[in-house]
């Protein structure tokens, strides 16, 4: 028998961030730790496909959710209300059943002794919660966080206390320039010390990080977000062109699956 990586779980809890600011748009979803040996070696940056029973026949796809944290008893994922599926997920209650498959994808590189600079844009903070909390030497990690919603909308309190966190709140167009300036300074400094930079966030943010990473010839990984139907590499709906440093020469410039070959890519191994 196959130890199936698909399971059905009851929701333990759904916590809105920033509940005082009218309709919460960001949520932490808590589920029991899924069964299976795959969870013993999960990596921050990996994701799960989650499909609540309440989707019925009407919403056929699961939703890819980044894994935030896994403990002996719990799996926590964050999501932002974006469309029909996440809107319905915002109404999940304890005991509601969801289907879940994962952990999926590859996850971020982890180097104990190198300086690690985490670059998060908005909801891109999600995978880093697990990253800083599982890093054996969190004092080597620092984080730069650009966001548009008030800070309390995001799970910043879950970031390890050892990790210095610089936040930039973009309220008007000029703020973005300051953030990009900080991004360049921090990435240059990190590259000088042979550090690793990891980025997750919206596409324009990742494009800026990629450009800087290539210019500085820095070691940078990007976590891409994509619409996904299957999450397992079968449907080919979530592809992105492989970059010039892709390990299989025949695939360079050709589409590769974000779900299966990513969602984390070295900066020179992917085109955006």
């Amino acid at each position, binding site marked *: 028998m196959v130890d199936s990586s698909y399971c059905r779980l009851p929701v333990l809890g759904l916590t809105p961030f920033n509940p005082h600011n009218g309709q919460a748009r960001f949520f932490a979803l808590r589920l029991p730790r899924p069964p299976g040996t795959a969870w013993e070696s999960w990596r921050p940056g990996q994701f799960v496909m989650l499909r609540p029973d309440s989707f019925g026949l009407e919403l056929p*796809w699961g939703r890819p959710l980044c894994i935030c944290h896994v403990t002996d008893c719990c799996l926590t994922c964050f999501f932002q209300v974006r469309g029909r599926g996440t809107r319905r997920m915002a109404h999940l209650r304890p005991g509601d059943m969801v289907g879940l498959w994962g952990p999926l994808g590859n996850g971020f590189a982890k180097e104990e002794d190198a300086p690690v600079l985490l670059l998060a844009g908005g909801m891109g903070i999600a995978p880093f919660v697990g990253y800083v909390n599982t890093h054996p030497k969190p004092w080597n990690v620092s984080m730069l966080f650009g966001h548009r919603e008030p800070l309390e909308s995001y799970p910043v309190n879950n970031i390890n206390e050892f990790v210095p966190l610089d936040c930039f709140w973009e309220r008007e167009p000029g703020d973005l320039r300051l953030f990009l300036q900080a991004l360049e300074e921090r990435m240059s400094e990190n590259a000088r010390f042979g550090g690793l930079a990891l980025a997750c966030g919206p596409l324009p943010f990742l494009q800026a990080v990629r450009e800087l990473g290539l210019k500085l010839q820095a070691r940078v990984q990007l976590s891409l977000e994509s619409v996904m*139907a299957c999450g397992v590499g079968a449907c080919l709906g*979530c592809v992105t062109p492989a970059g010039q440093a892709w390990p299989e020469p025949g695939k360079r410039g050709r589409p590769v699956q974000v779900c299966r070959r990513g969602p984390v890519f070295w900066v020179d191994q992917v085109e955006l």
Partner: protein
Amino acid sequence: MNLAVVLRGQTHDLALKNPVLTASGTFGYGLEYAPYGELKSLGGFVVKGISLTPRDGNPCPRVLETASGMLNSIGLQNDGAEDFCTRKLPLLPWRETAVIANMYACSVEEFARLAGRLDGEEGLAALEVNVSCPNVEQGGALFGQDARLAAAVTSAVRKAAPSKHIMVKLSPNVADIALIAKSVEEAGADSISCINTLLGMALDLRARRPALANVVGGLSGPAIKPVALRCVWQVARAVRIPVVGVGGIVTAVDALEFILAGASAVQVGTGNFMRPDCAFRLVERLPEACAEYGVASLDELRASLCCPTC
């Protein structure tokens, strides 16, 4: 209960341990779903469409979830027949279950060359011919929308792959699907699978743009099940070769409905995205669904549709 079926073709039969296959494009090359069930428990699986040479497919976005379904315009991304035969097929459990290659080409001659390449592959139990593709030699008209063209492709594949069971996958985007079915039967098809996706479109009103980069795409999922059932029923009445039902099948009850409409086997497509063990679970549940609905055998069910016009 014995669930084994034999698709009795004009040239070659296709024996399946049960009537549940997975549909091309929704199940990768099978191994993607190995963590979710025993591939050998399936009647078989139809792999992602294969072309003679590698194709990158269409630009993104190329999939979109719609009400009770999805649109796709992947554009047949694949690494080509040579890569499939030498690198992918050897890894598949073809001794234990039927592996069926779905074929895509842009001309009759290319279909024949592709069929010729695949014919020698011991690991392939059958070839499924995707006639829902444009014929570049004739202004992009779809093979599957023209009875003569569909027949020409079928007969070319039949000749080029004399050792294989040939299943022709029909498009529902036609005025009279029974007419196309009869023409591919006459041209030598061993079985017919139907339906391929329905041509559809979705818009982003805010951006005033099409939601898919390719503008149009194929609609699949539970939304198309009534159309698929109707097509299976019409085709099964029109031809003597077996029909394989595809379109919105998610549960064992769905599968039995298709068999009642005249199908000998079924393919699970978009259901694989609803839960990755969908097809495996369907196989498991088939006996209890048969018991619940008083189905003594699949053959008995197939011949038993009561309707005023049958």
